[in-house]
């Protein structure tokens, strides 16, 4: 082969290019990828998925709520630490029974069109949310208010709702049963006010119309589906001086690897919960970068066992499965990003909460139980259908447990993936043996975790119904004293875990990446943001 004089430089240039391409960019040392603060105080957020819509009272999903909290505000709000703080209401009080609450609204609260936020706006909004023809998927959040359930079921008129506006600034709410935690509930978007001047409008055909009128720290500037949602600082928000960001941009990026790529490229400042792949999260955690923020979430990953079906109708079989569930391995190898193996339903992170003790046992005990139940060595047990939705770690969990249970108990599992609506449908029909589930609570109260398994709760797909359990929960609801209430709930949880209609696997965690020039964002177990105090340091440069 003839050598040509230009070969050498071309080849070396190519080699140089390839070497450069294989690196992970001109990242700043010690940080993940490029770190260049934006020129103006704008926060660019990878937000997972577009919200279903802008109406705060209609949806029940983290994505919709995140946007709702940007554009609207309730009586109370959350801080970045996840604590409640006064919102539209500057103060509130309860009667001795914690059944009737009086909220005092700040007179300076404004809608973005300049009009006042009045107590009547809340009444109006709540009635609208409960209206059957409005068909809000979040109506259940309001059911603690007296009369709410009947209105939503169409059995009573909207005027029967247990809430009234005494004046423009005084709002009185009556509950179904005592709940000292009710004020915190008003910080949930379904209880936010919507402007009465907007009621005729169904927000339909957005973006044809104007941006919706809100009362939150930001107002909507632009929203294009699957592209971006831009909100700009509101001029009318009562606490506008505390808002330092000029704009917030939500990018709905559904591919988790793409999210990390954009973060590396410096085009995203914050990746919210569940938006980066677990394996990369683990890698970042291992490298100990300061941008990685782990927080537990008030959420439990568990398996629902169909107690209506043989052989899971036998509690001994359920217990045998529970005892041999290899939580530690699953937490470490499939998640391993702050997720903790757990045998209990209620997260142990709740303040003052201690979990009940449950009897342990090894694989030998489990095999014994199985033999007692008439299935020695798993004989006579048909393959158990384990349904889960594709995407995320659920398939890996199913396959892992398939291996474990087959080896330890001789029970065969048939992992059956499907998309979410199919799983939901099969779950509701009871057409499964084992189904994966995650329960994420709205508020940090232990009862929120246990209500899922109450008889008649639509989320209880196990077919398990226990009158003692239901009675304990009902009693706890009526009990005002916190210690007594917690004792009742602990007994209820113990009962649940002894009868094993569910197998808790782990307590969830979120790993989020936040650029070093962003201040005031603190990932918390409720996954909420207090926008006051979040800032972007445009003059930031890496410390030397």
């Amino acid at each position: 082969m003839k050598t040509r004089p230009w070969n050498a430089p071309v080849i070396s240039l190519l080699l140089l290019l390839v070497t450069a391409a294989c690196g992970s960019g001109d990242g700043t040392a010690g940080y993940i990828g490029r770190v260049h603060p934006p020129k103006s105080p704008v926060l660019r957020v990878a937000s997972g998925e577009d919200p279903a819509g802008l109406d705060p009272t209609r949806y029940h999903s983290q994505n919709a709520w995140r946007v709702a909290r940007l554009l609207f505000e309730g009586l109370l709000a959350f801080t970045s630490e996840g604590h409640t703080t006064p919102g539209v209401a500057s103060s509130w009080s309860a009667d001795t029974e914690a059944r009737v609450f009086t909220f005092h609204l700040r007179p300076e609260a404004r809608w973005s069109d300049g009009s006042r936020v009045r107590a009547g706006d809340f009444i109006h909004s709540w009635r609208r949310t409960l209206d059957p023809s409005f068909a809000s998927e979040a109506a259940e959040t309001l059911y603690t208010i007296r009369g709410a359930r009947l209105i939503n079921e169409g059995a009573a008129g909207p005027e029967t709702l247990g809430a009234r506006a005494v004046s423009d600034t005084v709002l009185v709410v009556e509950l179904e049963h005592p709940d000292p935690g009710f004020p915190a509930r008003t910080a949930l978007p379904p209880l936010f006010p919507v402007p009465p001047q907007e009621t005729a409008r169904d927000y339909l055909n957005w973006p044809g119309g104007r941006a919706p009128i809100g009362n939150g720290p930001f107002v909507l500037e632009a929203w294009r589906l699957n592209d971006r949602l831009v909100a700009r600082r509101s001029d009318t928000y009562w606490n506008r001086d505390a808002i330092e960001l000029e704009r917030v941009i939500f990018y709905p990026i559904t591919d988790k690897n793409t999210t990390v790529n954009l973060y590396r490229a410096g085009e995203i400042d914050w990746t919210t919960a569940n938006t980066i792949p677990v394996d990369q999260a683990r890698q970042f955690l291992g490298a100990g970068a300061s941008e990685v923020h782990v927080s537990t979430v008030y959420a439990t990953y568990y398996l629902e066992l169909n107690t209506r079906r043989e052989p899971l109708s036998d509690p001994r079989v359920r217990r045998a499965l529970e005892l041999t569930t290899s939580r530690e391995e699953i937490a470490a190898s499939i998640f391993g990003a702050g997720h903790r193996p757990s045998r209990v339903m209620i997260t142990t992170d709740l303040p003052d909460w201690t979990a009940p003790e449950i009897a342990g046992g090894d694989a030998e005990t489990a095999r014994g139980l199985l033999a007692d139940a008439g299935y020695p060595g798993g004989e006579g047990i048909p393959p158990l259908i384990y349904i889960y939705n594709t995407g995320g770690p659920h398939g890996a969990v199913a396959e892992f447990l398939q291996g474990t249970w087959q080896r330890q108990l001789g029970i065969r599992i048939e992992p059956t993936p499907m998309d979410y609506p199919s799983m939901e449908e099969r779950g509701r029909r009871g057409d499964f043996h084992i189904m994966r589930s995650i329960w994420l609570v709205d508020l940090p109260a232990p009862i929120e975790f246990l209500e899922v398994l109450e008889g008649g709760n639509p989320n209880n797909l196990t077919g398990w119904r226990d009158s003692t359990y239901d009675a304990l929960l009902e009693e706890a609801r009526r009990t005002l004293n916190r210690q007594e209430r917690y004792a009742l709930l602990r007994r209820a949880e113990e009962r649940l875990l002894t009868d094993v209609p569910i197998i808790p696997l782990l307590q969830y965690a979120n790993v989020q990446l936040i650029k070093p020039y962003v201040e005031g964002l603190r990932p918390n177990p409720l996954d909420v943001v207090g926008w006051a105090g979040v800032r972007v340091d445009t003059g930031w440069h890496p410390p030397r």
Partner: protein
Amino acid sequence: MSMKVRRLGRDTLDLLLLIFLLGGAVVALLGAEFFPTELAGTVEPIAQGPSFRHILGTDTLGRDMLARLLEGMRTTMGVGIGATLLAIILGSIYGGLAGLAGPRTDEAMMRGVDVGFALPYMFLVILLVSFFGRSMTLLFIALGLVAWLPLARVVRAGVRNLRHEPFLEAARMMGGSHGYVLRAHLFPQLGTPLVVYATLMLPVVMMQEAFLSFLGLGVKPPMASWGTLVAEGVERMETAPWILIVAGGSLALWLIGLHLAGDRLARRLNVHRTTGTPEKIMAVGPAPDGQDQEDGGAAS
């Protein structure tokens, strides 16, 4: 002399290609028997790079990648061959009947094929698989349904070209039905081009299987397919690059081999005499005016 050397080289290359493809198929078929995939949840380390114990490393559940790959190859080849066979059967029957039928039925049947081409097929497959769950049977039926249209054209063109051959005239004059004529006289003649088109179709179908796998619509786990492994490799590109390199590399090599084999077969067997060049036939666009009719709707 130089011509001869080149020819010899070609033959050797073809032989190597054949060995590569057949060898791959045999390895996929038997390998999965000898190296069965372990169930997940072993004590083996997860997502580990290549080592002596695991030549190709382990996947994210600690399973041996080599075993997974062999299983995946078998699945994908199975789906691919199944779908291609289905396409051939459907296409042959439909195309054969259209080719033998009178001009009006022929016209109507080919318009039917046009309607088929105008359907956004892949989208219907996506709907089908996402709505009705993931099973190997559904997958290969769905992919086969996408692939049968061009084959219907191939067969029809072949039949049209052959229909005036004396042996056919004779068979028909003796009162043979369409079915009989097709079975006894035409398919044997069309066998060669069908094999060639099947070879060209196979990599396309396998690629579609990979595509569906990426969308999470592939085979049901713990079963693996080449496509699901490649999709997994892409997902773990940063933390476990060997999965992508091994699965993606082998898939690409195999597909290239198939494409080459299809080309070589078409050249060697000279199929365009019967049905037109593969390029033109595989260009499955709208019925180009004048192609369907080149032998004239009015010819009979």
